[in-house]
């Protein structure tokens, strides 16, 4: 058997004792971890987002409480599923959720209402960032979906969304365009945004999706995959997040990024306190919303933040999508349609 003779190392037994020692050590660590009662668990996105969470939010929390929070890198769906799994003793204390998951979590009673008496910095977060969520969550930072393009191939990028869509349908860019799919995590929001351009008609938007399909290289689902397609010049036009788009354009002379008229929809990361989470969670939320941490976060991730006391330096301001250019989706109006949209997307856009 090759499995035995070739792969299984002969030294296996010799390694058993050290492995046991490590395992016992790890058990000891877990025990010690249990003992530190007020340790809280929070969530961040990966990469630079995680770095920012450590440097800005966790640092502030450590300054105030003397302990480090555990930071998990999870997507919104995983976060809400984990909270649902153990409501009495949640394994996540401060959640980072998509807008819709935040609304669902609020409705399901998984969250505590945000309380300015416990997190004073909330007072400086304008109501618009919390209203649709009934104060169960607040936007932590937001971005917008804008257009990236290859300057070498696209001399005159279309000024507005409708022209982009019509040109794509007309095959003006070959099949080298990529839009987000409805099945992408923020796809339904983008779909809602397009309905606002077409008199609120879903049918018209789906007709456009369908008409564009032959000239779309790929309706993207995975953000890393999408930026890769653009970076490898697989596509010349990509609808993508503003922060990363500007950053990419800054580093690659051939790439450009702009906001087509009449602006873009706001997409946000929602911060929320999980019900039954320890009190210390409020400290972390207050930290996230503090002007200093908010500015630090914005400088690192290149997305606007929500504390009205934050003053951006000019070079940062240049790459942040201004609030007046973004429209906040009316989640309450369309969120119940999402399953139907996804089914329609799956069935119609082939």
């Amino acid at each position, binding site marked *: 058997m*090759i499995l035995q003779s070739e792969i299984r190392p002969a030294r296996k037994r010799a390694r058993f004792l050290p492995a046991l020692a490590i395992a016992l050590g790890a058990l000891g660590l877990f025990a010690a971890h249990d003992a530190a009662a007020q340790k809280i668990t929070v969530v961040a996105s990966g990469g630079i987002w995680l770095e920012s969470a450590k440097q800005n939010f966790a640092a502030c929390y450590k300054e105030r409480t003397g302990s480090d929070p555990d930071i998990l890198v999870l997507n919104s*769906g995983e976060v809400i599923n984990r909270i649902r799994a153990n409501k009495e003793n949640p394994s996540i204390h401060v959640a980072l959720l998509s807008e819709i998951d935040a609304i669902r979590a609020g409705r399901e009673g998984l969250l505590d209402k945000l309380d300015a008496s416990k997190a004073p910095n909330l007072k400086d977060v304008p109501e618009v960032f919390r209203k649709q969520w009934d104060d169960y969550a607040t936007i932590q930072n937001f971005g917008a979906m804008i257009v990236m393009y290859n300057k070498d191939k696209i001399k005159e990028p279309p000024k507005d969304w409708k022209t982009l869509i019509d040109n794509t349908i007309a095959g003006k860019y070959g*099949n080298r365009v990529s839009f987000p799919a409805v099945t992408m*995590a923020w796809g339904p929001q983008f779909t809602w945004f397009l309905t606002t351009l077409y008199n609120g008609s879903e049918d018209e938007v789906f007709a456009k999706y369908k008409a564009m399909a032959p000239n779309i290289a*790929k309706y993207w689902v995975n953000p890393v995959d999408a930026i890769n397609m653009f970076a*490898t*010049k*697989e596509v010349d036009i990509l609808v993508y997040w503003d922060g990363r788009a500007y950053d990419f354009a800054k580093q690659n002379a051939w790439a450009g990024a702009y906001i087509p008229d009449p602006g873009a929809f706001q997409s946000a990361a929602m911060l929320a306190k999980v019900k039954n989470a320890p009190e210390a969670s409020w400290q972390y939320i207050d930290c996230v919303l503090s002007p200093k941490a908010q500015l630090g976060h914005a400088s690192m991730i290149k997305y606007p933040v929500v504390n009205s006391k934050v003053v951006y330096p000019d070079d940062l301001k240049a790459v942040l999508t201004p609030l007046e250019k973004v429209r906040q989706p009316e989640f309450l109006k369309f969120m119940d349609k999402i399953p139907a949209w996804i089914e329609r997307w799956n069935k119609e856009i082939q």
Partner: protein
Amino acid sequence: MMPNRFRLSTLAFLAPAVIGLLVFFIGPLLLNVEVSLREQGGGHGLAQYLRALGDAYYVKVWLQTIVLAACVTFFTLLFGYPFAFAIARSRGPVKGFLIFLIVTPLLINVVVRTFGWMVVLGRSGLINGTLRAFDLPTINMLGGWFAIGITLVHVMLPFMVLSIASALEGIDQALEQAALTLGAKPAAAFRYIIWPLSLDGVITGTLLVFSLSIGSFVTVMLMGNNRTMVLPVMVYQQLNLSSDWPFAAALGMVLLVTVLVISGIQLAIGRRLRRGQA
């Protein structure tokens, strides 16, 4: 006395496995069945299953899922068998190198591996770059069944190759030589001796590859497009986008039953083949 005590101790040894199976497998499975039977009004019924099996689109997705896994299994077998043969027949460092070569895909994260294939298959990738260098038209190979298939075959190969190689290594080389001296040409020796005796490995390999590839979803999501919908991606969407747990659970059960039934058929065919060629 003796047999009784023996049986008790056997039970004691089995207990952790049985408990583990109950807690981590049967339990969640029953919960999943319960969720899949929930209906909108609050009662229980077969509504989710009727929705899944009564809609031409979902039936098509179900068939696509099966066909994808079957094709991946077929091509993995086609490419894997010769490779396994080479491993079984080589010795020393060459053998070590071949095994290393076949196991490498398992050492690489699925996302990284998939992106690797994007680099190869992409419009400015290896293949198209070569085509362009010879002034030939380029082909868009990304975002479709071809790209999914090639990526899945790549990652599934080690399972197939190692199963078959271990079966081939168990075959005494004297058997093949005996067949040759009895008048069998190499092709006949393969057909009548080596192939039937390696069937156990082939069956193990195809079962593994089929059940792994019918459940694969990261690769399908990254390499596919909206046309290349399969059940696992569907389940993911229902969970994460539509938040429709009962439907997701029902689709998951359909997938599970499909795998079980097809594996059963595969086993039966394998057994028949073995007997038939004896």
